[in-house]
């Protein structure tokens, strides 16, 4: 599995057309300079040798060095991964917290006005291009509503001039790659160290990109919840629950919903993939230095090692999320529990 992902990532990065040297150093780089450049980064070796070296490096936790920035890819990751994780989790939370209840209401009161309105909204939401939605949100909240209390910052992570103090400094912990990585979770870092001004600024900055990113999964989740609940409400055991004399609320929540959530949980796991894809666009539009934006820049500049390293992390993240989803599923559905 892992080796498959690695090979795929490696191959995909090389399939991007264009010359890494000229992309990194500019169109006017001479052949000699490029020769030296390729030599330095091992780009002259046959492709399978490059792959072998790559595998060996990965086994040692080395994702290589960015062709463009000349810093290790891991360092870039420490710097940028937390932004993306925060953004994705916020977006996923919004999608679930809004999408599931909407789906429940529509499913339970199907064909009602709420249902029709929600489903029209959901279909528009699914069809809405993320970049367009992002731009519209920026336009509405940062331009039209500027100087009103509803104005929201359209780009970046924090207001200019705010510099968060990392929690390890506050707590007197050692500074290393890991604590540094943790400190980059701006919201969490501000929360645990009571830096309220930073916290509110960070959260305000998260709202627009997270909403833009959440829209599609939210719509998918709402539709899935609705149809799944509708199916379950017609099943025999729901009739049994009613015949037992349970209150309607108990029938829906205890007997219908738990079963109806099973396919939704799977969809949430899968939307995480879409979310990571959407993060590329969202981060670029909202100018957040996260994995998505870095990946976008790396692809444009043929920065193979960065493309490989970041794609790998994204792929692993996807696998991990789906593992968690599987565990949740097993908890929810006794039929898949292994005896």
């Amino acid at each position: 599995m892992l080796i498959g992902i690695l090979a795929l990532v490696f191959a995909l990065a090389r399939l991007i057309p264009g010359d890494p040297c000229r992309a990194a150093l500019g169109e006017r780089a001479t052949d000699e300079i490029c020769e030296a450049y390729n030599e330095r980064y091992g780009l002259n070796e046959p492709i399978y040798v490059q792959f072998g070296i790559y595998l060996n490096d990965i086994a040692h936790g080395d994702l290589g060095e960015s062709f463009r920035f000349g810093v290790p890819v891991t360092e870039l990751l420490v710097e940028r991964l937390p932004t993306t994780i925060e953004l994705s989790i916020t977006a996923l939370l919004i999608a679930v917290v809004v999408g599931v209840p909407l789906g429940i209401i529509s499913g339970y009161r199907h064909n009602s006005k709420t249902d029709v309105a929600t489903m029209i909204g959901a279909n528009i939401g699914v069809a809405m291009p993320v970049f367009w939605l992002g731009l519209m949100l920026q336009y509405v909240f940062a331009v039209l509503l500027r100087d009103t209390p509803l104005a929201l910052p359209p780009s970046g992570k924090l207001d200019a001039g705010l510099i968060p103090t990392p929690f390890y400094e506050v707590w007197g912990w050692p500074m290393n790659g890991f604590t540094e990585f943790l400190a980059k979770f701006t919201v969490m870092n501000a929360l645990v160290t009571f830096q309220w001004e930073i916290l509110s600024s960070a959260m305000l900055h998260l709202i627009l990109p997270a909403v833009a990113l959440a829209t599609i999964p939210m719509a998918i989740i709402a539709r899935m919840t609705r149809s799944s609940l509708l199916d379950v409400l017609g099943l025999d055991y729901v009739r049994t629950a009613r015949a037992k004399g349970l209150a309607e609320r108990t029938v829906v929540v205890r007997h219908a919903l738990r079963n109806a959530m099973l396919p939704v949980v799977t969809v949430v796991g899968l939307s995480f993939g879409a979310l990571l894809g959407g993060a590329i666009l969202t981060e670029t539009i909202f100018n957040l230095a996260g994995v998505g934006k870095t990946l976008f820049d790396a692809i444009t500049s043929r920065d193979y090692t960065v493309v490989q390293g970041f794609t790998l992390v994204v792929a692993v993240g996807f696998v991990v999320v789906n593992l968690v989803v599987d565990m949740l599923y097993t908890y929810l559905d006794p039929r898949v529990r292994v005896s």
Partner: protein
Amino acid sequence: MTQATANGGPVLEIRGLKTHFFTRDGVVKAVDGVDLTVEAGEIVGLVGESGCGKSVTSMSVLRLVQDPGRIVDGSIRFQGTDLLGLSDKEIRNIRGDRISMIFQQPISSLNPVYTAGFQIAEVYRVHRNMKKGPARDKALEVLREVGIPDPERRIDAYPHELSGGMAQRIMIAMALAAGPELLIADEPTTALDVTIQAQIIDLMRDVREDLGTAIILITHDLGIVAEIADRVAVMYAGEIVEEADVETLFTDPKHPYTRGLIGSIPVAGARREWLDVIPGRVPNLIDLPPGCRFAPRCRARLENDLTICTEREPALLDVGENHTARCWLYSEGRR
């Protein structure tokens, strides 16, 4: 379990029940003027072909008919109380406590994500306000009472771990948990194989003997009815067409439809040239034929050359002691 108490009158009295489904294609008159009385401790068989409205009748009793279905007319008195006049809360208090139901597909009638014990215990939790622990103890007790082997293990089993017969026992245990006065069993054995069927039927008979629970047994298996029921009501196209005690019905059926039904039971050992099946199909319940609903399929009508059958609906007439039939054949002398 508490002994079911009867206060003299019938347990259940359905009068003129009409339950219709308002579909896009028209109004489906699934139940169209049903009268049915169940005395305390009595087992009443309700038989009829598929689609004649047996399930809808029973669902109507507990007011479980879902959209687009609606009870449009009639009354359902349970120990004197009109169930159709109760509030939602009041009818919920009756469901599962004083009237309970079991269904045809026992496995799918149980929620796959909860254990058998949990689902039985729910009855005590909702109707006896018990906490989880004591409710579970009661569930174990009722599992023992319905003769489930190894109840300590079964109580923690999930539905997918149960056989059909075992699941139906669980359903019966759940239905009996609160000691109801009336049990409605909607084809409780149809999905089970023959030996298990016999066990379930025995169990229901015991329930009536030991607890005095009245039972409405819905089935299209006349063999089961002959074996266990006291009285039988035959349903056709949303109406009761004949009603009598079980012996009378089998020895002296009056309605041509009942005769056809009884004639179509294959008798083991008996050699017959052909199986006596009723020709034709149940009419579409949206566009019912004028006159008797069975007329288009009725051989007796042709033999007796009756024209009234296709013109006017017959009423349910007395054709003997405690024996009624809805057929023009028996109305001559009475008019």
